[in-house]
């Protein structure tokens, strides 16, 4: 059981700052997922923890001792690479045994551990094969097996599923979750697929441009995003983020943009004239026939009927795209004009800097 702590970690390549002071703590046995757009520094952060990358300043602590100067080989962590990085000239067995041989473990114990791990990952039949003769999913398992046999203090995964096709990815995702349930162990997992993040994580760390945007439980991030970036990043399809201007409206205020007008009771932090980003998830937009209660009139430019659910992509003046997600089948054609109403309780409001004002507005 291992606890990992990052304290004001910074990293720059020459003049380029990549990681801008990250504070983070990973508890023992926790499954932590780093998500973020491409190039935000997820891999770099993971490699910093692994010890494959030096840091410019700050401290990395494993079990309360600073490991800044300790090389990767002595940190006792195991890493699964995006490319798997299996040794092509060794059999699957040798691949898994390599790390154990390096730590001078007796042959009998190596054999036992390799066979146990192979059993668990169902790769016993391929132990004598070279990686070349394995499918993507099998290689993936071998890479994970190579990490498991070492019985490491923590597992680091760098986008381990990104090379697999969609179906296999779903299957492997389940297996990984089962694996974590079985062996416990601290795991840090990098991905830019937020479905993986939502389903696997105990805790999600959202990164952008080398800074942590928000840390929290998956549903916490979903329900209470701390800023517009997290709101837009977590959830699929993306949350609609509409730029509006606040106007006085009786006792309360109204958010307006083009023909959209969302009347709200007074919200602390918003005064008339402010620029407010209104965030509403596609599933929280209702189609209303009831004139007077609608917030916006929009024209459907694409309707996707999937049978079990329906996606509508609409446009209104000053709004390029408004996505609506409804369960079941909606008889809506392209070009139809709809009146829409936003669910007030599920509305997220952000200020001009993207900071959250409120998650959910009382109606």
């Amino acid at each position: 059981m291992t606890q990992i702590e990052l304290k004001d970690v910074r990293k720059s390549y020459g003049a380029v700052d990549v990681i801008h002071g990250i504070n983070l703590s990973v508890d023992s046995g926790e499954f932590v997922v780093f998500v973020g757009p491409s190039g935000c520094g997820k891999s770099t952060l993971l490699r910093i923890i692994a010890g494959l990358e030096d840091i410019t300043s700050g401290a990395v602590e494993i079990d309360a001792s600073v490991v800044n100067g300790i090389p990767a080989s002595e940190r006792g962590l195991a890493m699964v690479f995006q490319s798997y990085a299996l040794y092509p000239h060794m059999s699957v067995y040798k691949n898994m045994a390599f790390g154990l041989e390096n730590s001078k473990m007796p042959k009998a114990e190596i054999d036992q551990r390799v066979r146990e791990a192979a059993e668990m990952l169902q790769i016993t039949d391929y132990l004598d094969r070279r990686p070349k003769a394995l499918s993507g999913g099998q290689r993936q398992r071998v890479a994970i097996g190579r990490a498991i046999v070492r019985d490491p203090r923590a597992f680091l995964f760098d986008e381990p599923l990104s090379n697999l096709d969609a179906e296999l990815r779903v299957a492997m995702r389940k297996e990984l979750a089962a694996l974590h349930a079985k062996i416990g162990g601290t795991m840090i997992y990098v991905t830019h697929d937020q479905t993986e993040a939502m389903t696997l994580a105990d805790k999600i760390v959202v990164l952008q441009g080398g800074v942590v945007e928000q840390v929290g439980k998956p549903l916490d991030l979903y329900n209470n995003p701390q800023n517009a970036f997290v709101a837009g990043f977590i959830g699929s399809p993306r949350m609609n983020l509409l730029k509006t201007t606040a106007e006085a409206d009786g006792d309360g205020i109204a958010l307006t943009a083009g023909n959209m007008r969302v009347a709200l009771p007074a919200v602390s932090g918003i005064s008339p004239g402010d620029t407010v980003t209104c965030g509403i998830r596609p599933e929280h937009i209702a189609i209303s026939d009831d004139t007077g209660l609608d917030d916006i009139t929009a024209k459907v430019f694409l309707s996707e009927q999937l049978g079990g659910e329906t996606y509508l992509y609409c446009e209104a003046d000053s709004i390029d795209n408004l996505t609506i997600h409804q369960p079941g089948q909606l008889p809506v054609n392209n070009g139809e004009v709809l009146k829409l109403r936003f669910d007030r309780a599920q509305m997220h409001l952000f200020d001009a800097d993207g900071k959250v004002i409120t998650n959910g507005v009382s109606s």
Partner: protein
Amino acid sequence: MADATANRVTVGTLLTARRGNGKLHWTDIFTYLYLGFGILLMFGPVVWLVLSSFKTPAGLLEFPPTMLPLGQISVEVEGYDDPLPVFRATLEDGTQKDLAQIRRIGIVSQMVDPANPENTYKVPISDRTPVREFRIATENYVEPLQRFNFGRYLWNSVVVTVVATAITLLINSMAAYGLSIYEFRGRNAIMLFVIGTLMIPITVILVPVYLVVTSLDMVNSLWAVILPGAATPTGVFLLRQYMLTLPRDLIEAARMDKASEWQIYWRVVLPLAMPAIAVLAIFSIMWRWNDFLWPLIVLNRSEVYTLQLGLNAFQGELDVQWHFILAMTVVTLIPVVLIFAFLQRFITTGIANSGMK
């Protein structure tokens, strides 16, 4: 590889392969002529060398030359010191007789009947033809190997080649490892410097290196041949460029697997660099085996001679013993050919990437 086994290509189909749908196109004819010419050009001299190496000295000197090792029969005749060559001569009365030639004066040759040496004849050279027999002159091989200590030279050459190649591969690959796997300031500058030494011709450093070798007291020992050329810029360059293409993830995976630098080098990088190592091994073996100038300078006692120096000894100022030279040249060729045949299968690239996605 997989394709070759899937649709078996036999030598027969390969040799009668044609362009497209089985018809003989003019480019087929052209290609076969061109390839045939190529084979003749490359392989002809080797075949000629091997066949000639089995000829007797007399057979070698014969004009016009024969393809097969046909030797002219010679006999011992009473009263003459050397064996005399036998000819079938047509005498003036039209009868044919096998006679031995004593000497030739202009267009007339003096001949003697081997059966009764008192009878001598004068025969115009146009009326006689040499009597030949098919004879493989194995003494061309046996004699130098026994009498001239050629076995010793062969052994010396093998020692020099094997030891020098092993040292070359080891230190070149270690240098290449350092210059490719580690990232440090000045890495490229060092590499440029290493490659820069290629521009210094050997003749320029010959004397300084000789002085170093003498002061280390290595003259007339095989180390004097082995050590000076062990680190080759070409080898470092070749291996480094190859190692640069190895995926970095593999090295890092090994680091995570607690491998020491030595283990990463020995168990991960070297096996993966096998194709490049094989190429360098072939080069090194050929350089060492055929090296002449440097051994000639530092080895001047015959018990440390290498094959090439031994061959040179047959080439006296006045008398060149072609039959020995040819035979021993064949001997020197054999190991290189065998090694090439063995190593060439390693020269397949792309092994290193097969463990990645």
